[in-house]
């Protein structure tokens, strides 16, 4: 069974990659673009017999995939 974890910088933390992409798109004439946020996607494939898989993925996201000082994460079952 697969879970998707998306990690991105907290809203108040400047995302330089997102800003650079946004500014480039705007410069190229795509003026409708208001903002771009870059995130990282992890897909975790667990054994089907895993006990409480959501809790396991949450702990992986909290302890490894994201740094809680600067980042937030969302989890979705695929």
């Amino acid at each position, binding site marked *: 069974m697969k879970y998707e974890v998306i990690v991105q*910088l907290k809203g108040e*933390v*400047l995302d*330089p*990659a997102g800003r650079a992409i946004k500014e480039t798109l705007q410069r190229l004439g795509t003026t409708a673009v208001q903002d771009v946020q870059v995130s990282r996607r992890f897909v975790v494939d667990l054994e089907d017999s895993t006990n409480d898989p959501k809790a396991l993925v949450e702990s992986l996201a909290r302890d*490894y995939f994201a*740094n809680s*000082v*600067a980042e937030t994460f969302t989890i979705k079952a695929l």
Partner: protein
Amino acid sequence: MKATIGILQFPGSNCDADCADTLSRHFQIKSQYIWHTEKTLPNVSGIVIPGGFSYGDYLRSGALAAHSVCMQAVREFAARGGPVFGICNGFQILTETKLLPGALIGNSGGSFRCEYIHVKPTTNGYLGQLMPPHQKAWSMPIAHGEGRYVIDEEGLEELRQQGQIALQYTDANGAVDAVGNPNGSMDNIAGVTSRDGRIVGMMPHPERATDTIMGGSCDGLNLWRHFLTMAG
């Protein structure tokens, strides 16, 4: 007998030999490399976590190294009051292990910065007495893509109150301003310490500022002297 210093080595460490060279040539101190798979530390009186790209910096800078076997031993060493000095990637590893507060994320300008910058110790911090009276700022190289120090407001205030902001980026005259800040760090923070001052983390490279023959300054020696004083 003089202290022996342990220098951690991860796959991707690349400043380990520079640190050993600084210790031996300038302070006649023996060092011992400690491979990342070591469960116990040898008999050392201080630990250096050198710069580099531990485990390729995959996941985040320092994140995988923070969970390595040897870092568990370093946690125990630090808990006993052993001094730990993390430089660049070593600083990132120390924040990822939570031995130091905050986080180091991508430079605000989006690019890797490799250049000489200026820093000075904060007056109420543990390094506050290290600045010679005739100097306004130290010159030292940085080489990092992820050196922007961030922490929540509450944590930042605590750092200020507790004197844990060790070093701040400055201009050439020692003024803490935006011009001297190479990576967008909050409060121009270039280095912090633990509450008791025994753990020091900094992004600039003091081991690369030890010989005028390299074309730069010798200001890094101030930091090494401080660390070695703690290591006894």
